[in-house]
């Protein structure tokens, strides 16, 4: 008898579990407890004993394992077929995936196959007293947050941004493994992966930094971006940014903070030339102290910060850097 009501897709490539699948397992266990529900992780691929052990150690009550040579590389149609069959057999209430390349694609296809609603790119999840999944998503350019639900269809599906939930603690797993019979033919695999190129992930310290200085569109040029970096080195912090500095090549893609970038938890965050759109602000909500420097007194960030400086950063930052250096000297 399958008991779990919340299922989490445990994304993996070559036996390497994506962290978001584990973060979601942790969140699912937290949501399930008051409802008296159990939580399953769902693994698909080939040679999965390692990932399976890990999921048990992170507290999964059940782990479904679809292990088959034809699932070796991800393909949306073959994966969707296996998961669709499994969901139709056991009727989970909630099905969660990471909002990754794989999870977004698979989730969309599965939701269409199951004719159910999916909330995409969520940054928070709640389970109501009526056991409805409420998903928090930034909308309309990130100016607002909305709560979305699908009250009449099952399973209630969501894809969740990586990094918004903490990794659960590892312990002694007591869950059970449920191996699945996989019925696939080569025709179910509708494309062939020819090559995969992945960069080594460079740790730029943003996630672990105690001080983060971030710049936004208001910085205006690569030359003035050096002021952001100067303030960061004066405070021994890490440098991050919003989308425009990355698009303008002032900053690197992996320095982006927010919904489609990193989620940070520094003690001190200073945002310079950042208006405060929700896409960015969701990535810094774990900061202890938020300082904002912006010319526009109407910028939304001034309502979302602890300390605001209304003025031209080109005047303020050099003075600030000098004053900090004076204290150190």
């Amino acid at each position, binding site marked *: 008898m399958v008991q779990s009501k919340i299922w989490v897709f445990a994304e993996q490539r070559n036996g390497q579990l994506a962290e978001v699948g584990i973060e979601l397992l942790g969140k699912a266990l937290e949501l399930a407890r008051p409802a008296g529900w159990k939580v399953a992780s769902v693994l698909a691929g080939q040679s999965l004993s390692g990932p399976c052990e890990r999921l048990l150690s992170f507290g999964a009550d059940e782990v479904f394992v679809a292990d088959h040579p034809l699932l070796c590389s991800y393909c949306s149609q073959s994966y969707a077929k296996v998961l669709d069959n499994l969901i139709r057999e056991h009727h989970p209430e909630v099905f969660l995936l990471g909002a990754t390349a794989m999870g977004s694609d698979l989730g969309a296809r599965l939701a269409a196959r199951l004719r159910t609603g999916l909330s995409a790119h969520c940054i928070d999840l709640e389970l109501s007293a009526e056991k409805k999944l409420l998903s928090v998503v930034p909308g309309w350019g990130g100016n607002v947050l909305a709560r979305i639900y699908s009250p009449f269809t099952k399973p209630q599906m969501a894809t969740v941004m990586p990094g918004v939930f903490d990794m659960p603690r590892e312990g002694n797993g007591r869950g059970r493994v449920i191996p699945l019979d996989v019925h696939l033919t080569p025709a179910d695999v509708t494309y062939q992966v020819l090559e995969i*190129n*992945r960069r080594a992930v460079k740790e730029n310290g943003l996630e672990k930094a105690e*001080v983060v200085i971030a710049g936004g569109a208001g910085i205006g040029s690569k030359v003035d971006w050096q002021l952001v970096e100067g303030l960061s080195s004066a405070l021994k912090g890490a440098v991050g940014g919003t989308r425009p500095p990355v698009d303008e090549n002032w900053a690197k893609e992996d320095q982006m903070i927010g919904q489609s970038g990193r989620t940070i938890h520094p003690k001190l965050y200073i945002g310079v030339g950042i208006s405060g759109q929700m896409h960015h602000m969701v990535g810094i909500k774990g900061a202890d102290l938020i300082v904002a420097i912006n010319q526009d007194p109407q910028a939304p960030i001034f309502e979302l910060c602890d*300390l605001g400086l*209304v003025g031209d950063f080109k005047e303020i930052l050099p003075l600030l850097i000098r004053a900090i250096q004076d204290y150190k000297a």
Partner: protein
Amino acid sequence: MQILVCLKPVPDPKHWSRLGLDPKTKTLIRDGIPNIINPLDKKALEAALQLREKEGGEVITLSMAPPSALSVLREGLAMGADRSILLSDAAFAGSDALATSYIMATAIKKMAHYDLILCGDQTLDGGTSLVSAQIAEFLGIPNLMHVSAIETQGSGAFHIRSQIEHGSMVVEVMPPVVLSVVKEINEPRYITLMDILKAEKKEIEIWSSRDLSLDEPWVGLKGSPSQMVDLLIPEGKRKMEILKGDPPEMAGTLADRLHRLGYC
């Protein structure tokens, strides 16, 4: 090569401060706000035009929107699309991603032949990124998201480069296939006055629900499982203290506070 490009008219971000929310239906009020072609959809169209230049064939744009979107479709024709189809019906109003994908896929099934369906990876407004994969699912054909390059092969197959976390993969797939493209794929061409004049002669067909064999419960607000519960006002948990003074005073005060907190 027969290529369909899905174009979504979206409210121009320059006017987003004027967007409102209907408190009853919890849908967006966008009256009077000008539309533009969703920027990534424009790149999908550019990719289609480049493939047509190389392989020959036809490029058709497909949109689902109120009739007010016609001017936006003209822009697609001016860029070089051969013709345009607008799916427009009061019954479609309130459709979420799932219902939209179903309606679009049903319209595509009416076409005798297609090799490629191109979309933008994400729209500026809803931004759910669901529609391309869901159209593919309703058509029963493969799809790839986050596409940054499309190459045709002598065999008739496509080699598609698709972005994944920290890298990319190259996939071989046979047509028909749905692809959604990312910003790195190209820079859309500029349109000239001549292009605009030429587009005036091109055809825009309007299809209503009567032109499509749709199952009624699956379209519009009723056919949309996703609903908005409410909007969250960002919590005013922060102190929101605004420093006073000129730049030297503000910089001095901030440095002093950072010093007291042990940062310098």
